[in-house]
C-alpha cells in the first residue's frame, strides 16, 4: 500500500515537473516584444533577430505594393521615428496611408523590418469614426469606377 502511494507520488511529481518545464521553456522561446518605432530604435542592437510586433502608422506615400510579385514595402512611423518594412503577401484589406498597423517579424542588421504578418489594428470595442470624415463617402470614392 505504502509503496503504491510513493509510486503514485513520484509519477504525479514527474508529470507536474514536465508540465512546468514545458511551460517555462515555451514562454521564453515564444515571447514577442510589442514595440513602437521609437522603442525599436532605442533597443538596437540587442533587439536584432528577436520576435517583435511593431505598431505604428503607415507613412503616407510610402506604400509600394506589387500585386504581380506579391511584394509589399512601406514605412511605419510614430512621431519622428521611421522604420522600413518589407513583407511578402497581399496587404490586409484596404491597407492605406495613415492607417494604424501592427507588423510581426524581426528587425535585422540591414535596418529593415522583415514582416511575416501585417495586421490592421482593430479593437474589440467600438470606436466612433474620427471627426471630419464621412466614412460612407470615403468608401464610395474608394470603389468609384469599380464594376
Amino acid at each position: 500500500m505504502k509503496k503504491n502511494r510513493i509510486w503514485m507520488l513520484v509519477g504525479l511529481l514527474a508529470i507536474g515537473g514536465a508540465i512546468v518545464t514545458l511551460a517555462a521553456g515555451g514562454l521564453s522561446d515564444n515571447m514577442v516584444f510589442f514595440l513602437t518605432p521609437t522603442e525599436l530604435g532605442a533597443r538596437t542592437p540587442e533587439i536584432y533577430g528577436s520576435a517583435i510586433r511593431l505598431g505604428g502608422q503607415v507613412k503616407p506615400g510610402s506604400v509600394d505594393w506589387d500585386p504581380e510579385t506579391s511584394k509589399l514595402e512601406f514605412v511605419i512611423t510614430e512621431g519622428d521615428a521611421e522604420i522600413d518594412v518589407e513583407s511578402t503577401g497581399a496587404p490586409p484589406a484596404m491597407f492605406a496611408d495613415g492607417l494604424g498597423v501592427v507588423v510581426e517579424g524581426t528587425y535585422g542588421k540591414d535596418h529593415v523590418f522583415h514582416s511575416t504578418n501585417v495586421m490592421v489594428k482593430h479593437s474589440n470595442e467600438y470606436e466612433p469614426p474620427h471627426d471630419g470624415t464621412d466614412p460612407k463617402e470615403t468608401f464610395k470614392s474608394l470603389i468609384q469606377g469599380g464594376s
Partner: protein
Amino acid sequence: MLSSLGYGFVIAALIGAAIMCAAGFRAGLSHSGTGVTAAVARRASYFAFFAMTAAMAVMEVALVTHDFSVEYVSRVGSLETPTYYSAISLWSSLDGSILFWGWILAGYGALFALTRRREWDARSGTTVSRAGGLAEGLRMTPVVTAVIGTVGLFFFGLLVGPANPFGLVDPAPVNGPGPNPLLQNHPLMGLHPPMLYFGFVGMTVPFAFAIAGLLTGNVEARWLRDARRWTIAAWAFLSMGIIGGGWWSYEVLGWGGAWAWDPVENASFLPWLTATAFLHSAMVQERRGMLKTWNLTLMISTFLLVLFGTFLTRSGIIDSVHAFSEVAIGPLFFGFIALVMIVSLGLIGWRSNRLHAPGQIEGAVSRESAFIVNNLLLVGFTFTVLLGTMFPLIIEAIRGDRISVGAPYFDMVASPIGLALLFLMGIDPALPWRRASGEKIRKAFQIGVGLAILAAALAFAFGIRRVYPILTIAAAAFVMTTIAEEFAKGVRARRRISGGSAARALADLFVRNGRRYGGYVVHTGVVVVALAISVSWTWKSEREGTLHAGERMTIGDYEIEFVEVWARQEPQRLVVGSTFKAYRDGRPIGEEQPRMNFYPASQQPVATPAVNSSLTSDLYLTLMSFDQDEGAYATVRAIVNPGMVWLWIGGMIVGIGALIAIWPRGVGRVRTAGDELLAATASAVTALPASVGDAGPAGDSGELAASVVAPVSEDGDP
C-alpha cells in the same frame, strides 16, 4: 419611458436576490429556519427571474424598435441595422452582456428552485429537526439558492450601478452608430455567445453547491451527484459555445482557422478545463470517498475562472494593465473575485476536519489513479494556458515592457498534454476501481494497443511524417476500441439478462445508464474533434495570388477562376464582393463570393470569406484587395482545410452525448419528489452496485452487470 421601466425591473430583481439570500441563509443555517422561510427563498428566485425576464424584454423592445433614449441602444443600435442583428446586439457590448448574464443567472436560480419544489413544501413537522431549524437533509437546497442569490446581488448590483444599460439619454439621438462591425457580420453571432453565457453562468450552480456544502457542513457525496449533473449541463453549453465560437471565427475573421489562442478564447477554455477535471474527479469521490477538498476546489476554481474570464474580456485589461481601472466595473470585478477566493478558502479551512478522506489509493494502476492523472493533466493544462494569457500582463506590470505570448507557445504545451489526455480516454474506462491485476490490464488493452499500432503504421504509410498527427491517429484508434469494447460488453450483459436484439439492448443502455454511455458518446465527439484538428493542421495548404478576369489558380484538388469585382449598397453597409468560379478535380462546384463589408462605424472593412464545405475538405477564399480603379483584378487568399467540417460535427456529438448523460430518469425523479425516505432508499440502491464492484478483483463484471440492471441506478461511470 422604456428606460425607467427597464431600470425598475432590474431593481426588482435586485430585491428578489436580496430575499433569496436572506431567506435562504436563514432557512438553511439558522435554528429558527423553517419550511416557510425556505419557501420564501424559493419564491424569491422565481420573482427575480420574472423581473430579469421583464428587464430583458424591455431591452429587446428598445433594441428592435431603435429607442435611442435608452443609453445602451444609443451606443450599439442604428436605424440601418437589420432586426436580427439589433436583437442580438444585446451581447455586443459590456452593459448588455451583463444584463444577459444576470438574466441567465436568474434563470438558473429559478430552474434550481423548480427542480426542488416538492422538497421545500412545509407539509409536516418532520422537516424540522429536534435541535431547531430544518432537518439535516433539507438544509442544502435553501443555502444553494442563497448563494446563487449572492452572486445575483453582485451582477444585478452592477446593472443598477456602474453597468446600467437603461440610462436615459435626453434628448434622444436620431440615430446611433450600430454594433461593432465584426459582431454584425455573420448570423452565427446569434449562436455561440448565448451558448458560452449559458455555460459560463451555469457554473454558478455547482459553485453554489460547494459553498452550501461547506456552510452546512454537509460534505458527503450525496449532493455531489446533483452538482455534477448541473456541471455537465453547463459544460455541454460551454463546449458547444467554444466550438461554435471557433466556427464563427472561421467564417468571419478570414485567416482560415478556428482557434488562435486569443485571450478571449482562452478565457472560455480555462473554466472548461477545470470543469472537465471536476466531471472526472467527482466520480472518484462518489465511489471511493476520496478527493473531497479537491472537488470543492475544482468547483470553486471553475466559477472563479468564469468570473476571471468575464473580467478579462470585459474590463479592457487585455489591451493593457493600465486600461483596467478605466472601466468602472474592472475594480469591482477584481474585488468580487478576491472576495469569492478568500471566503472559499476560509470555508475550506474551517471545515477541514470534515474533509478528511476515508478511502485511499490502493493500486497504482486503477481507475481512480487514472482519473487523478487525468486531473493533474487538466489542471496543468489550465495552469499553462493561464500563465500564457497572464504573462504579458505580469511582465507589463513588473517591467513596463509590452510583450505578447505567441500561439506557438500554446501549441507547444497543448499538443503533448492534449495527446496524453486523449490516450487516457482509452485507458480510464477499461480500468477497474481499486486495483488491476497485470493479467486484466493485458486483456483490457491488447486489442486497443494492436489497433493503435496498426493505425499509426497506416498513417505513416499514407505519408504522414509529423509525430503529433501520427500519435493522435493512434490514440483515436485506441480510444475508439475501448469505447466499442465497453458498448459490446454492455450489450452482451443486457442481452444475457433480458434477451432481445442487439439494437434494443443498445438503446436500453442509453435509457438505463445514460450517464455512463452518454459519457462515451461525449468521448467519441472529443476524438472526432481531435482528429479534425490534427488532419486540418497536417494537410492545410494556402496560396495567395492576384488574378485578372478569366485567370485561374490551382490549390490542391481545387482550381479557382476570377470572374469580376462588384459592389452593392445595403442599408447598414456597403459590400464589395468578388466572384470566383470554383472547380474540384476539374468539375465545377459553384461560384464563390468572398466579400469586404464597409460599415459606417468602422474605418476598415470587415472581410467575409467564402467557404465551400464538404465532408472531406473546405475551400476557403478571402478577398485581400482589388483593383480600385477598374475592378480588373483581385488578390485572393485561397486555403484548403481538410476535414474542417468534422470539427463542428464533433462538437455536436459532444453536445448529444452530454444530453444523453443528463436526461432525467430514475433517481432524478425520486430525488425531486424530495421524500427523505425514498431518497435514502434510492441512494442505498445506487450504493449497491458500488459495493458489488468493491467486492474484490473479480467484482468488475459484477459491477457492470449490476449497473446495467439496476432500474433506478444512474451509476457506472465512464
